[in-house]
């Protein structure tokens, strides 16, 4: 028996794809991904219409989707994150049906419950054997963890593995195993390594970013959570990484041994592992080459599925054991609701990813954001889109002070006692608006272009089209 088929074209046919079905993709190859475009091109060539694309995230490398939408090949999209180029077209109303935004935990939850069933899952695999055992750790297109692809592989009716590094059976170090896989296709390249992982992720040199990072580390240090067994997640943004650096210095100085680092993993978290700040890294996605090298060679650096990472439907998820998460925001309102979906003009330019999952799970959820970007204040009366509800956010750290959610009076008292610059979020808003002025409200259209579905499956908010002048 061989699962090897000659081409993506053959795999699409053998998988039994029909009009109206759902296909799925994962985003570990990020902006270097070739697979989604190659598959959709074949689906279009075979004359299929009315296809729903369920992708863990979409990047601007996937702009060819727009042609498929205009031609009626694609009529529905579900994703946890959509980059600005595609997002702009969606906000302009290119798609008739609203995009369904989920979270990194909500997506596998809804897949497993049958709320968002997948007909054919296409797994981009940097290394695979002919029976479909595959991994992201090896090969010229290595991306490290394949965490987001697990639910697709486990629950899709048909599973196609697409690889550019076919190795003899059996592959030793397996992420997704053969018992879930129907077909295997070998192609010349599944992606462009330059777009898959960055060489190194850099800590910010921006003085304002460093001030925020220093405040963030101090908040953690005085939160009461920084002790042996501490667990932590941070993003790959410059200020978040700088906060991790300051935190590392504090942990080493105080001799604190944490338990685990979680999430999308950067080389900086790997450094913290090596320095003894953590016992383990739990990795759903690698952000840079150092993280890929680490997950390949260090048994303490473990790949986890999106279900284990963040699914509210799992018997337990790692986010529920998380002490502190550092997150970003494009806007935050005076009720601490956070927007990471739309920009200041209302165009889609992101998505929750793991934002609301980690905010819900972590004991301390911290937003780092400058008081203003360009000329626009970050704190508003009402965010344009609720990506993560304010009840799950504890602290906002800016260069102009630290605002603590009133629900967390104990934390506020601790931080005040430590002499940190605590400000009321309303005052922070007013202070910022004295510099920037009060921005005009954005004009929304009358058509819903996206639905934001909370991690437990409820309609949390709707994003409207941006009228074109």
């Amino acid at each position, binding site marked *: 028996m061989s699962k090897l088929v000659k081409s993506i074209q053959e795999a699409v046919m053998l998988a039994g794809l029909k009009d109206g079905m759902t296909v799925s993709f994962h985003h570990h190859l990020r902006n270097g991904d070739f697979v989604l475009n190659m598959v959709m091109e074949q689906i279009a060539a075979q004359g299929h219409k009315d296809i729903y694309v369920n992708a863990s995230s979409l990047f601007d490398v996937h702009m060819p989707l727009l042609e498929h939408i205009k031609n009626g090949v694609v009529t529905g999209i579900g994703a946890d994150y959509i980059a600005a180029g595609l997002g702009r077209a969606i906000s302009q109303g290119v798609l008739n049906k609203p995009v369904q935004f989920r979270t990194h935990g909500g997506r596998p939850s809804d897949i497993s419950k049958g709320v968002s069933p997948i007909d054919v899952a296409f797994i981009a695999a940097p290394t695979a054997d002919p029976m479909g055992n595959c991994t992201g750790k090896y090969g010229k297109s290595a991306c490290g963890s394949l965490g987001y692809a697990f639910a697709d592989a486990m629950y899709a009716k048909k599973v196609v593995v697409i690889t550019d590094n076919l190795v003899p059976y059996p592959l030793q170090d397996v992420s997704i195993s053969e018992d879930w896989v129907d077909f295997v296709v070998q192609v010349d390249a599944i992606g462009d390594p330059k777009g898959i992982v960055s060489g190194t992720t850099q800590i910010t040199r921006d003085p*304002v970013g460093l001030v925020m990072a220093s405040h963030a580390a101090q908040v953690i240090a005085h939160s009461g959570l920084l002790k042996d067994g501490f667990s932590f997640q941070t993003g790959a943004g410059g200020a978040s990484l700088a906060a991790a650096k300051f935190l590392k210095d504090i942990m080493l100085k105080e001799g604190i041994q944490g338990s685990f680092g979680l999430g999308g993993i950067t080389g900086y978290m790997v450094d913290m592992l090596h320095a003894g700040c953590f016992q383990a890294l739990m990795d759903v996605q690698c952000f840079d080459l150092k993280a890929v090298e680490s997950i390949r060679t260090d048994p303490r650096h473990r790949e986890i599925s999106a279900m284990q990472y963040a699914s509210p439907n799992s018997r337990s998820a790692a986010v529920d054991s998380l002490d502190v998460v550092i997150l970003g925001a494009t806007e935050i309102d005076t009720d601490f609701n956070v927007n990471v979906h739309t920009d200041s003009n209302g165009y889609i330019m992101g998505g929750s990813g793991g934002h609301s999952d980690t905010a819900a799970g972590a004991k301390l959820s911290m937003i780092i954001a400058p008081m203003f970007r360009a000329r626009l204040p970050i704190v508003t009366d009402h965010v344009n889109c609720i990506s993560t509800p304010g009840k799950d956010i504890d602290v906002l750290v800016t260069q102009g002070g630290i605002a603590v959610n009133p629900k967390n009076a104990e934390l506020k008292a601790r931080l005040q006692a430590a002499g940190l610059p605590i400000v009321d979020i309303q005052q922070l808003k007013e202070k910022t608006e004295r*510099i920037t002025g009060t921005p005009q409200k954005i004009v929304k259209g009358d058509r819903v272009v996206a639905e934001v579905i909370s991690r437990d499956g409820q309609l949390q908010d709707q994003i409207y089209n941006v009228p074109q002048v």
Partner: protein
Amino acid sequence: MRRSMLFLPGNNPNMLINGNCLGADAVIFDLEDAVSPDQKDAARILVRNTMRYMDFRGCEIIVRINSIDTPFWKQDIDQILPQKPALILLPKTGSAQDVLEADGYITEVEAKLGMEKNTVGLMPLIETAMGVENAFQIASATKRVKALFLGAEDLTADLQCKRTKEGREIEYARTRLVVAARAAGVDVYDTPFTDVNDDEGIVTDAKLAKALGFTGKASISPRHVEVINSVFSPTQAEIDYAYEVMAAITLAKEQGKGAISLRGKMIDAPIVSRAQQTISVAQALGMGREDGK
């Protein structure tokens, strides 16, 4: 208390409005070298408005105006003085006469504005060979002078030598300025360390300045502020010792003793004076003891 003074270009709105968040005890809004001649008026307005509308509590504002041999300096003072900066940094001060000229105009403008005389202090920037040689006369020229400030970049150009990280070429100027300022009873601030990427170099340079007797040190990079603050802050051990000295002196007075020793060393007037300075800085930094003992 000024341990650190951070230069911010007067024509960079983003840096100006974030200036109070960068941890420096004082910021120096720069209207001189950072601003090209065709942007002088814009920078002047930007700095004025920043001072007018921004909250800089906890961070002192100093403005470096243009030197008195340029056509800009009087306009700088006209616009900036109403905003009451703590100090005006006067570049290329070479003699007491330069100070008197600047002081005269500032006094005139203060009077026009109905401000009390000497509301705004003056800090001559010593960055020429002539300035170094005249340091004491400059420091004691008028009551408005609150401190001297060493500018090594222009000075080394004037001395026709290379500016190095080690700073051998400015050893004389540094010690001369410290002595002159202390003799005149004013503060004295060290030149910035200009390699913003040398994290070890700034520590060495700041420690040297502190050891020579400088009150604090300027910086052109926000990244250096924390190091400078740390070097120019007393350590906990120094603070503890200062309180011990003061306690011993109090005890000696109570017991009617003239001389007293602590840890086997005689406590004399200079030691007491240093202990008082340390406690005063510690209190300003919130590191002092609540009962003052």
